[in-house]
């Protein structure tokens, strides 16, 4: 077994035991990226020199006994919407094509404190707006299971990098499913924590009331270890929640006896692929066999989550993205006549199509005359959706369902019809509206050889129940194949556009 096939926690243990060094780990991973990332395009930026320098520093601290944690010395990939001091941070947008932050996002700092080595920045949908990583200004990322298919999005580069063995784990961000859905499409584990658990300081905002950073990993053990490292109460994020129960690895217990699991009938209806449905129900039956109490129930309001989400997210995006004005950072147009013309031309040339579509929609729903009818209406429906979940969690510990209606679509398919792409978020999006934690983990492979994801949703602050249920299921399921072993399925990709930054 190559060391790139090990899990993050295994690599850290090997480094602690002196079987390898953090520098060797970084070198092995950089060599793998060098060898195969032309094929997948998981990374926007690879920081070779920086990673090796960090690895030497971390190794010295491990040797001195200053770093002893479960992730010390392990290289990580970071989604390109989290600021990294001195390292290009593009949000996969032309408008931030030359942006080098002066500070590092709090979640990334937490990882560095735990001894992580930052390999580079992963590709994403521009400003996290998309479900396929095809709206990136720096080329599409390809699914390692089959390069003719998308990796999902918006954290597609992070999910594909984990699946392709181009990092041991990665950070992503999830506004409407952007960690869980690509994790599902790429056959890896992805978790969106309870809103407020991980600081958003230094995360370039899309929909601030919905955005949350979380891990993408090879297994549930790594997921718990990473979440434990990045969870923090941060005064620099006014929505950060102070929690005492962030020892998530303590929930890695193989036991679901008496765990009350509800399956929403609404998550098994029209539009759900039969193979996905069968795999998800099989997982539920497996958990029932281990002593969980599994029931079907009606969650209600499911079809209202997507229009509610797109109203709120577009409104917040239109406000958050006002800061890109061609003055303080980022792209400025060449020719203009006065200040306002400079603003408009810089933004129109710097933003891509999907970003402009959402800014326009957001500006409209916030405009006078429409604010009550659209924006406030959506916030009222959000309250109803939250209430529906509250009622469900009075009866159940965990809600179980699919992550997405299908496995990964082919490249190009989703972009033909934005609303069809939005509908793919139906099972993930309400979780963000209600601030809940959710985890995605692989539960099967369809007839085309693409992975199927299982989603577990918990009540606010109940990550441990999710981790315990996911860990138990993972043990029952057994080893899941790695995406990088499936390359035989893949057609040779066309020459990709060369727009990588080095």
């Amino acid at each position: 077994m190559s060391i790139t096939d090990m899990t993050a926690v295994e690599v850290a243990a090997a480094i602690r035991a002196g079987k390898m060094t953090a520098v060797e780990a970084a070198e092995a991973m950089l060599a793998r990226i060098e060898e195969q990332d032309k094929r997948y395009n998981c990374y926007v930026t690879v920081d070779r020199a920086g990673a090796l320098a960090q690895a030497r520093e971390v190794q010295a601290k491990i040797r001195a006994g200053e770093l002893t944690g479960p992730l010390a010395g392990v290289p990580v990939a970071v989604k390109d919407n989290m600021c990294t001091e001195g390292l290009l941070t593009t949000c996969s947008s032309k408008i931030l094509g030359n942006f080098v932050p002066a500070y590092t996002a709090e979640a990334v700092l937490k990882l560095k404190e735990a001894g992580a080595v930052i390999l580079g920045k992963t590709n994403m949908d521009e400003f996290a707006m998309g479900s396929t990583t095809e709206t990136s200004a720096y080329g599409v990322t390809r699914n390692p299971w089959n390069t003719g298919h998308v990796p999902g999005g918006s954290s597609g580069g992070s999910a594909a990098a984990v699946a392709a063995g181009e990092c041991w784990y990665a950070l992503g961000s999830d506004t409407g499913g952007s960690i869980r859905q690509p994790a599902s499409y790429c056959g890896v584990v992805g978790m969106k924590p309870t809103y407020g658990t991980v600081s958003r300081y230094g995360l370039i905002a899309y929909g601030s009331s919905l955005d949350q950073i979380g891990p993408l990993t090879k297994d549930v053990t790594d997921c718990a270890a990473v979440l434990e490292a990045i969870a923090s109460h941060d005064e620099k994020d006014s929505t950060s929640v102070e929690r005492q129960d962030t020892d998530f690895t303590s929930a890695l217990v193989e036991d679901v006896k008496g765990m009350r699991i509800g399956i929403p009938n609404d998550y098994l209806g029209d539009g759900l692929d039969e193979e996905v449905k069968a795999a998800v129900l099989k997982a539920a039956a497996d958990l029932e066999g281990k002593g969980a109490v599994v029931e079907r129930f009606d969650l209600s309001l499911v079809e209202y989550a997507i229009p509610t989400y797109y109203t709120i997210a577009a409104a917040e995006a239109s406000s958050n993205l006002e800061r890109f004005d061609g003055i303080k950072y980022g792209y400025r147009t060449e020719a203009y006549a006065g200040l306002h013309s400079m603003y408009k031309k810089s933004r129109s040339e710097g933003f891509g199509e999907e970003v402009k579509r959402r800014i326009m929609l957001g500006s409209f729903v916030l405009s006078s005359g429409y604010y009550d009818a659209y924006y406030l209406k959506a916030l009222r429906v959000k309250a109803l959706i939250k209430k529906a979940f509250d009622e469900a969690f009075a009866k159940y510990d965990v809600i179980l369902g699919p992550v997405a209606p299908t496995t990964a679509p082919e490249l190009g398919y989703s972009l033909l019809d934005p609303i069809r792409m939005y509908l793919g978020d139906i099972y993930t999006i309400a979780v963000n509206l209600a601030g809940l934690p959710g985890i995605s983990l692989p539960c099967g492979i369809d007839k085309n050889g693409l992975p199927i994801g299982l989603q577990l949703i918990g009540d606010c602050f109940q990550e441990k129940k999710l981790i315990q249920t996911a860990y138990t299921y993972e043990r029952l399921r057994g080893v899941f194949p790695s995406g990088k072993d499936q390359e035989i399925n893949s057609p040779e990709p066309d020459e990709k556009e060369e727009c990588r930054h080095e």
Partner: protein
Amino acid sequence: MANIISDETIEYVGILAKLELSAEEKEQAKADMGRMLDYIDKLGELDTTGVEPLSHVFPVQNVFREDVVTNSDMREELLGNAPEQKDGMFMVPRTFE
């Protein structure tokens, strides 16, 4: 399509959004926004009378801290990202004659 977006509306939204769309982009934006609003209109099926808008999922309050400087002087690093700078300041186009 129930929602017909007029040229005037797209023009106005473009001003709010600080975006300059080409004629072709405007037509596309009219169609896209109309379709999205048709879809969003589904929320009208729900009676939300008496439901308070929920902007934050937890009942959090404003967070206050002492007004003390905690960061260091990062003027050079911050100006380093500016498209144009002069004498330690951001350069902007002339705003009045």
